[in-house]
């Protein structure tokens, strides 16, 4: 089984996690830039963080046979701190990098006017840099925040198919399904979404534009939740090909719009022994690393 975790904050995880993830089938990840618990107070600390997401962290992941990519952006919480606003000025430099596969995480935290401005400005940057956007939905007042998010996306230059709206639940999935955006679900031990509810949502909405992630970070979270969803899908009667679609081909298709994925050779379910494929990742400039460490 091959797994692509499209949202995981590896900076906060240990090398043991990388080993367990590889053993569970994870071969590729996307690490969105976000807040770190402790608020930052200057552009310099953002630059060091972005540099780590494009330097040290991919190196660390490669030692465990996992391809690491990043999304870069100014998160909504810190968008409210005037000292962090200048981050917008350095973003173009980072959005030009090889392994940056989207702008993000963007969106709303407290739905302030500052968050409106920073969100819209970064959707414009995504269009300019021909990148998709990863959008976080707020923890508080979630349905209203999701509706407002979709309004801002509609007013932007991005097609709905270039936007992934994340951290959805039973209350917010319908409006995003209607919008044409991709639907992201973060499967957590206690909060957000769990694997059984996830499978029920897949049963009701189908597998199209569905993205499942662990969103593991410095809080109570589990980097193997993608694997648990795969097992729960199989137990519920889904085929290995269905699992491959949700946990590999869908995220590859979404982030592949960047043309910047660098994926290891992997084996699709049902492929003959030794038949390694990249599930369409060769399209539009994405590359496959032949003979990459397995």
């Amino acid at each position, binding site marked *: 089984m091959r797994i692509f975790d499209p949202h995981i904050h590896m900076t906060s995880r240990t090398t043991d996690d990388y080993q367990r993830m590889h053993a569970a089938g994870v071969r590729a990840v996307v690490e969105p830039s976000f807040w770190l618990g402790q608020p930052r107070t200057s552009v310099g600390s953002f630059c060091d963080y972005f540099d780590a997401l*494009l*330097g*040290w962290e991919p190196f660390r992941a490669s030692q465990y046979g996992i391809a690491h990519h990043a999304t870069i952006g100014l998160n909504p919480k810190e968008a409210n701190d005037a000292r962090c606003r200048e981050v917008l000025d350095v973003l173009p*430099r980072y959005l030009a990098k*090889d392994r940056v596969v989207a702008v993000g995480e963007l969106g709303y935290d407290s739905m302030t006017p500052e968050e409106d401005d920073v969100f819209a400005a970064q959707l414009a940057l995504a269009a300019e840099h021909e990148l998709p956007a990863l959008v976080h939905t707020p923890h508080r007042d979630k349905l209203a925040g999701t509706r407002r998010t979709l309004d801002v996306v509609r007013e932007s230059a991005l097609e709905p198919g270039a936007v992934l709206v994340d951290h959805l639940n039973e209350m917010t999935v319908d409006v995003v399904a209607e919008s044409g955006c991709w639907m992201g679900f973060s499967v957590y031990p206690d909060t957000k979404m769990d694997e059984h509810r996830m499978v029920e949502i897949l049963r009701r909405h189908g597998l199209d534009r569905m993205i499942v992630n662990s969103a593991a970070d410095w809080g109570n979270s589990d980097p193997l939740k993608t694997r648990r969803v795969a097992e729960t899908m199989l137990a519920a009667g889904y085929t290995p090909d269905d699992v491959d679609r949700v946990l590999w081909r869908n995220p590859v298709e979404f982030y592949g719009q960047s*043309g910047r994925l660098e994926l290891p050779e992997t084996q699709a379910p049902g492929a003959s022994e030794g038949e390694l494929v990249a599930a369409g990742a060769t399209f539009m*400039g994405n590359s496959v690393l032949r003979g990459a460490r397995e």
Partner: protein
Amino acid sequence: MTPTNPTTSTDALAEVASDPDTIDRHFPAAARTAAREGRDGDAAREALLLAVPGPAAYVVDVVRRVYDHGDAAERRAVLLALPALDAPDRPDPIGDTALPIVRDALRTNDTRLVAAALGPYAAAHLDDDAWRQAVLKVLFTGIPVEQVAGLADRADDELARMVRDYAAEREAAGRVVPPDARTVLALAHRAD
């Protein structure tokens, strides 16, 4: 979302030669452009750095900025290009003025950067203390010593002492002494 009208390597080189600041835009994209053209990304990035016109002091300022703003692959490409920027047939070779970049890379724990920093440029310019520490770091981090340029010429008694101590520490802990440690010792003794 692939570039609708992509820049070619030839266009990028011409732009950098006439307006060096455009390297900030061309250098990050150079490996993707090269891949589309079936070329090597590191070579394409070296060509961009060599295209920056002007005296060595100006060129090194640009090289340092490109390195500081680079991701790991860009930084590695800058390190690999240093010998070419210092080639004697250049109008104004950079000499030892890019050593701060080499020292920065040697402070990292990214083996790709450490290995790239220990090419012919470091062999020619890096001081003995820093160079010996770097060779020891190569042994520690498992980088093949054959990737260290000029090892046979620069391995000396002091490096041999450091490597002997390292081997003794490994043996005292019941650990295997890597064969590369023996290689360095053999080269150091041959140099006597």
